[in-house]
Structure formats: C-alpha cells, structure tokens
C-alpha cells in the first residue's frame, strides 16, 4: 500500500493529469462528468489533507523531491501555508464547479464533444494545481503552458462557437502566449545567472552573491517576469484578453476561470516577487511597488466604471474581476503585513464570491438563454434562490460587513493606512467598493423591483444541481465573512513568511 500522506504533493498533480487524459475514453452521456467529478473530488480531498499536513508540520512547510532526486538536479514540490491555501481554493472550487458544470455543459456543449470538454477541463485544473504546488521555476512554466492551452480550448467551446468565443479564445491565445514567453525569458535569464531552477536556491544565490542584484541580467529578468505575470493575472492595463474570454466562455468555464485562473497568476507573482527576488529587491530597489500600486488603483477605478456601463452581465462580472484583481495586486504591492494578508485573503474571498456569482448567471442563462440586464427583470420572483445568491455575492464585492469581501477590505485599508502617505490608496479601495454598489445594484433593482418584459415566458427556479454548488460557494462567502479567523490566520501566516523571504 502506498503511503498517500507522504506523496500528497505529487499526487495532487499526477492523479488528475493521468485521469484527465483517460476522460476521453469514458464515452458519452453522464460518464465523463462523473469521472471528472470523481477526479476533482479526490484532488480536493488531497488538498485538504495537504493543508492539514502543512498546518501540523513544525517548519510550516512540506517539501517533496520528485523521484528522490536532490532538489539541485530534480524537481522539488514545496508547499507552505500560502500555496496550501491556494491549492485548497483551486481544488475546492474546481470540485464544486465540476458538479455545477453538468447541466450547463449539457446545454451549451455539443453531446459528441462532452468527453473532450471534461478531459480538457480536468487538465486545466491540473495545470493550475501544478503551478501552485511546484518549487521549481521551469516546472512552473511547463504547467503554465498546460493550463493555458487547455483554457484556450475551454473558452473556444463557448456557446457562440462560431462567433465571439473563437475570437475571444484567439485573442487570449495571442496575448497569453506573449505573456508566457516573457515569463520563459525571465526564467531563462534567472537560470543563466544563478545556475539553478529551484526557487529557493535562486533566492539564496541572488542574496548571497554580492553585486548580482545590480546586474543587467537580473534586472531584465525582473522586467520580463513582471510584464509576463501582469498579463497572466490580467492586471490592468494588461487585462485586455479577459473580458471577452469570460463573456463568451461556457458558463461553467467562466465560473472556474474567474475563481482560479487569475488567482494562480497572482500566486506566481507572489513566488517570483517575494520568494525569488525577495521583498527588499522587488519593493525596495525596484520601483515595482509604485508601478503596481498605480496600475492597481487605476484598474480598480477604470474597470469599476466600465463594469457599470455593461449590459451583458457576464461581461460586467468580467470587468469587475479585473477590478477585484486590482485589490489583490494593491494589497501585495503595499508590501506590508496587513496589505499582503488582505491580498491573500481576497484571493480566497473573491474566488468564492465571483465563482458563485458566475454560477448564478450561468443558471440564468440555463433558464432564459440570455444574460443581459433586461433578461433578469422580475427574475427575483421567478428564480428567488439564484438571484439571492447573486445579490449576496454582490454584497461581498461591495465589501458589506459580514460577507467575506469585508474581511479583505478590512485588512487592505489597514495595510494602506500603515504605509506612510497611503491614505489615497485607502480612498481608492473604498471608492472601488462604491462602484461595486452601482453595478451590483443595477441587477438587484432589475431583478426585484422591475416587471419582466411583456411577452417573455415565465421561467422556473434553477435546478438543484446548480443551486447546491452555487450556494456552497455563496454560503462560504458568508461563513468566512462572519468567522474569518481561519482565513485571517492563514493569510497572516502567509504574509509573514512572504515578508521573511523564505517560503
């Protein structure tokens, strides 16, 4: 019997990687879905076990050397509080959205492609998990490509397969490849100068060799990485691929991507900026703190305004996602304890809120076939649970007290105030939530206080198969808004270790 506990870090990647490919062989109908659910459920279980293992370990970290090769030669998987937390998010949301996907996929994906869809779906989740679990810079790139290529395919399977989805996917393919090449170049330069691909070793050498940090190679690597990561995590103004991609992707894919894909991009930024380069270089020697703060603030404000002007609700949420990502970037760019804690907490909080909201919209699409602002008129009565989920999720985006969004904001504003002269940033965070009020409230008003357009046939509440996953995420956003000691503890632990430099 294999000792599962000892091999958790690698099982998280290998099980869905092999299983995902096997999905193609599961045939038609419900079987691919059941298999994918089984795989993601298993992965979710592994991520929980791994989280417990990390919390229990004395060093606060679990290291796993692939094939027992020492880390200088082989690949090291290295899990601390931060990536255990991200793994938990990806695993959990991945599992829940897979359950949710069944009905919406049946409706939006041609029946003969369902097995391919789930194969690609599981591989996308695998890639995201892999990026998060690994401690090897080149391995990050490989898994990044796995997740990117599969995500392009997922987006292209959107409902309007012949129109928006294909161009959206192509646009993402181009921009995503540019971003990935930048990252690859950055990693390549780093390897040139440090002679290693292991993140921890890279960091040690950058810190120990005198004068290395001033070398052109390191500076160029840093610039390439920052730009590439900005593209991958859809940081304003490098977010151009995201709104279309989320708008035209199948509903379940939008939910999955919004909750996990960009978050993993942010995680990579954490690793590169804090773990490899170290906070002293990234935010002391380089002006990246200022650049990121400016981009984030502009992103929060501009995309908030843009979101208000959208009539397509999926697109509205997509813009809102870019804005919310601005909060996450703003938090870690503050480079102080509460800022980073707010950032880490918001990765989780935003994942559950936005995932739940995209699921609610998916249910609206499932019932009405549309998702523009007119189509939700009067739906508050016809689909009360779905619209209630959307509303609660929206309250979270606003940062209403007792929702998860409030917790992130609490830390973020504290972080802003801790930074000397940081009060305009606090103002940006607060104004951003006001913009969220406006775009969320348009939907609330339409759903609860307006009558449906005459001639639209009445619709039923969404099926339970959609409601349960939706409310699981929304329920989590309430639970972790009322009792945020768990997320708060993890976020503060992660923030401390990032500021300390070592993973």
């Amino acid at each position: 019997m294999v000792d599962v506990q000892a091999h958790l870090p690698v099982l998280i990647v290998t099980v869905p990687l092999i299983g995902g490919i096997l999905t193609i062989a599961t045939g038609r109908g419900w079987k691919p879905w059941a298999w994918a659910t089984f795989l993601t459920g298993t992965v979710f279980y592994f991520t929980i076990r791994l989280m417990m293992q990390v919390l229990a370990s004395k060093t606060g970290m679990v290291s796993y050397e692939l094939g027992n090769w020492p880390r200088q030669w082989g690949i090291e998987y290295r899990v601390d509080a931060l990536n255990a937390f991200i793994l938990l998010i990806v695993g959990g949301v991945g599992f829940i959205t897979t359950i949710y996907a069944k009905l919406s996929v049946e409706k939006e994906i041609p029946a003969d492609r369902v097995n391919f869809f789930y194969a690609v779906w599981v591989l996308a989740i695998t890639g995201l998990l892999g990026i998060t679990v690994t401690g090897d810079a080149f391995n990050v790139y490989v898994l990044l490509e796995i997740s990117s290529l599969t995500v392009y395919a997922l987006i292209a399977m959107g409902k309007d397969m012949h129109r928006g989805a294909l161009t959206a996917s192509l646009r993402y393919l181009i921009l995503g490849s540019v971003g990935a090449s930048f990252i690859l170049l950055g990693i390549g330069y780093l390897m040139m100068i440090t002679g290693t691909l292991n993140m921890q070793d890279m960091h040690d050498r950058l810190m120990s060799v005198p004068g290395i940090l001033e070398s052109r190679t390191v500076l160029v690597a840093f610039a390439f990485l920052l730009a590439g990561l900005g593209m991958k995590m859809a940081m304003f103004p490098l977010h151009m691929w995201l709104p279309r991609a989320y708008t035209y992707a199948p509903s379940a894919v939008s939910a999955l991507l919004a909750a996990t894909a960009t978050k993993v991009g942010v995680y990579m930024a954490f690793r590169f900026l804090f773990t490899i380069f170290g906070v002293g270089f990234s935010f002391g020697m380089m002006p990246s703190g200022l650049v990121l703060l400016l981009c984030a603030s502009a992103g929060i404000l501009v995309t908030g305004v843009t979101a208000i002007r959208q009539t397509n609700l999926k697109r509205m949420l997509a813009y809102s996602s870019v804005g919310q990502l601005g909060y996450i970037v703003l938090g870690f760019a503050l480079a102080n304890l509460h800022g980073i804690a707010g950032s880490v907490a918001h990765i989780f909080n935003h994942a559950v809120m936005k995932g739940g909201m995209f699921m609610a919209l998916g249910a609206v699409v499932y019932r009405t076939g549309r998702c523009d602002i007119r189509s939700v008129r009067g739906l508050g009565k016809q689909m009360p649970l779905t619209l209630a989920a959307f509303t609660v999720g929206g309250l979270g985006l606003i940062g209403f007290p007792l929702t998860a969004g409030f917790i992130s904001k609490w830390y973020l504003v504290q972080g802003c105030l801790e930074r000397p002269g940081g009060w305009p940033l606090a103002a940006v965070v607060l104004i951003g939530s006001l913009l969220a009020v406006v775009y969320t409230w348009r939907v609330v008003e339409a759903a609860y206080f307006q009558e449906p357009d005459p001639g639209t046939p009445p619709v039923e509440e969404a099926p339970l198969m959609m409601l349960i996953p939706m409310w699981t995420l929304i329920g989590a956003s309430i639970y972790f808004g009322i009792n945020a000691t768990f997320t708060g503890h993890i976020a503060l632990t992660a923030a401390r270790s990032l500021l300390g430099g070592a993973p």
Partner: protein
Amino acid sequence: MTFDLSPPLLAIYIPLIGALLIALAGRWANLREGITLGTAAALFYTVIGIVPRVLAPDFWAGYAKAPPLRLIEVVPNVFLELKVEPLGMIFALIASALWILNSLYSIGYMRGNQERHQTRFYVCFALAISSVMGLAFAGNLFTLFVFYEMLTLTTYPLVAHKGTAEALRSARTYLGILVVTSVCFLLAGIIATYAYTHDLSFKPGGVFTKALASGELSAPVLGTLFLLYMYGIGKAALMPMHRWLPAAMVAPTPVSALLHAVAVVKAGVFTVVKVIVYTFGPLTLIKYHQGSWLIYVAGATILIASFIALFQDNLKRRLAYSTVSQLSYVIIAAALLSPISIMAAALHIAAHAFGKITLFFAAGSIYTAAHKTEVSQLDGIGRRMPFTMGAFTIGALSMIGLPPTAGFISKWYLLTAAWETEYAFVVGVIILSTLLNAGYFLPIIYRAFFRPSPRAANPGRHASSTDGLFGDEDDHSHAHGHHGEHGEAPWPMVLALCCTAAATIAFFFYSDLAIDLATQLRKGLLP
C-alpha cells in the same frame, strides 16, 4: 459562537425569528399580521426587562470590568459583541415600543391602500428592527457598523417598495448617500481608529487618550477623524448629507413614520452621540479643542432645513425637512459637550420620536382616507378627521416645544445647556428655529380647522374609510367621490395615532424613566 440567550441577544433574535415566521405565513394575511404584533410585543417585553440592569446604582462601577457579550471573533481580535449602556437603552426602548403601535398602524395603512408585496414589507420591517436592536446594544464600533449597514440594506426594499421609476430613483439616492458616507468616511474612520488604538470598544472618556498622550496621534488627526465620523454617519442627516431623507418619503407612510422619523434617523444621531461620548470622549475633545465646528454646522442645518420646510407643499416632505432640523437638535446638543447637553441629546432622541411619529401617522391617515398629499389640499379636513388632526396638533406642538408635550422637556435641557456653556449662537438658533417650526406647522392646523372645505373642488380618489380595511371591495377603480365623502381613516390607524399622541403628552408628565436613563448616562461622563 455563543448561544447564550441573554436579553440583548434575544432582542436581536426575536425580530429575526419574527421575520422568518412572517415570511412563512405570507399567504394568510391575518396570521401574518398577528405574528408581527406578537413579535413586537415580545420584543418590547424583552427590552423592558433589561432596564433595571442599566439603572442599577453601581452600573458604571462595573461597566469597564463587565465583559461584553461576545458572539464571534470575525477577524482576529475584532469581535461581534454586545454591551448594554443607558443611551442604547433609551434608543431600544423607543424603537421597540413604537414598533408595536406602528405595526398596528401598518395593518390599517397597507390594507387600506391595497399595497402590493405586503409580506416583503413586513419581513423587511422586522429585519430592520432587528438591526436597530443590534445597533442599540452594540458593544464596539465594529458591531455598530455592521448593524448600521444592515439597517441600510434592510430598509432599501421598503423605500423602493412601490417599484415605480420614481420610487427606484429615490431609493437609489437613499442607498447611494447612505452607503457612500458610511463606506468612504465612517468605515475609514473606524479602521483608522483601530490602526491608532487597537481598541474599538465603547468607554466613557473615549479610546484615544493613550494615543494622544504618547504623541502617536496628534490633535489635527483627531480632528480629521472626528470629521470622518460626523460626516460618515449619513443617517444623522447633517447637511449636506441630508438629501436621502426627503427622498425616502416615497416609501409607504408607516416606513416614513417608524424608520425615517424614529429608527433609521435616530440610529444616525444615536451613533453620533455614542461616538462623541464613548469613542472620543467629551473631555478629550475639549482638551484638544476639536469639533466645535459641529455646533455651527448643526445650527445651520437646523435653520436651513426649517426654512426649506416652510416652502414644502407636500406634507411628507415638509415633515421630512422638519426631521432633518430636529435631528440636528440632537447633534448640536451632543456637540456642546457638557454633561447636561449630553442629557439633552439623549432626551431629544426620545422626545422627538413620539411627536414625529404622530405627525407621520396623521399624514398617512389623511392619505388613506382622503388621498391627499399636499398641504394646500387640507382645508377644512380637521372637521372630517378630528382625531387625526387633533393628534397632528399635539405632534406639532411637541415639535415647536410647547408644554405639555414631550418636545418641551428636551428643549428645556438643551436651552439650559446652551446657557451654561454660554453659546449665544445656540440660544439664538433654538429661538429662531422655534419660530420657524411654528411658521410651518401652525398654518396646517389653521387650514385644517378654520378654513372651509372646498366644495367638490377636488375630484380626488378616495377609499371608503373603514370598510375598506380588510380589502374586500375594490373601491379604487371606480371611486370618484367628492371631498366631502370621507371620514376618518381605518380604525387601527386612528387607534395607533391616538396612542402616540397620548404618549407625546404623557412623556411630559411621566418622563422619569427617560430622565433616569439620561442621568445615568451623564453619570458615566463624570470622572
């Protein structure tokens, strides 16, 4: 998480459970209204039960040591917690007592006007009251903020109730101003307070003394924080943040009566007083010379709002501006920072409530019986609706501050405080505002009782008085009656407004409880 059912917690749970039951009983109107009344009564009983605890002579001796009732740790070191103190006690008493009468009145109003979505109305109402209880018993600023926002959220559906374009627009203004102020200023102030002091609890004397003494916090920053709080509390309707209140008048009258004359606006001024007394501490503000601007802004708000009220023809809007001005009485009293003025602020929170709810009840009953909304339509209406207009007169006298009404008591304390602190400006404002109050209320009374009713001049629609109460005949569609055909409003409404009018007078003669509580509050201020 605690499941300890101590009374303050129970006071939050009772309306919550009530809301749930009301939602479940939505189909059976009589049962639903029965639950509302029962919940209101149970709540009042619970709140009354807390009073002796607060009035205990050694209350303040044990206050600092008594642990708050901690419900849950939301963020590490920040708790959702409850703690009872005299000011919150006054507020909770008023809100829970008037909820009973208001529920009675709502039944008459909602059925008499055949409003739609009645279940949603009662559910949101109960939820709003639950938030008010949480606000009144909040044990720290964080908890206060949580319930403050819940109150905004739960009252929004009540303002948007009609769903018309106008109602939605007004509700947007309502939500917009309240959320903007609370998120941009109040929340910022609270987080800054936490950053400086790591203490959000309510302490007589304030939480800033240590940070100020150590030089960590300078006087100008303290002043900025004070500004953030005062304008962050949008519900107090300090000008220019008052616009939401007239906008909220689009709501059904019971909402205007209880929420926008008592619960929501009082939540605002209650928070102002609470923050001045327990977060800043009057002595700290005096020592560092901060916050005296509030006297002038509140004074200006009193006068400007009264002045605007003079020109409002819509009765509810006139009352709304009167509320804006009366709220600033409380703020100006609190801003005087003397023990007696803090008493005046607490008393005015109570005293204004009875008079203003009576006035709104009267306005709603005129609307229900005669379908009149404008002051200029009220000629001679006093003879057709003697109870309503009689009660209106008592309410108006209380607003002006004449004996024997509730308004006199608080005005007495306020004037005493103004003389003691030697603020001639405040004395002047009170005198001028009294004149203005008389100027916009007395003409209504004169019209109602002494002008002849116009003969068939007004083909307004009307409901056929009391028999329309249980909604069994649809008299809206075909009623084209004349002015002369209506009588009093449905009996639950008349009963409710007579009760509040009686309470307005009774408060003058039996104000012991309120004064005792206010005195207890004052004792806490003295070191």
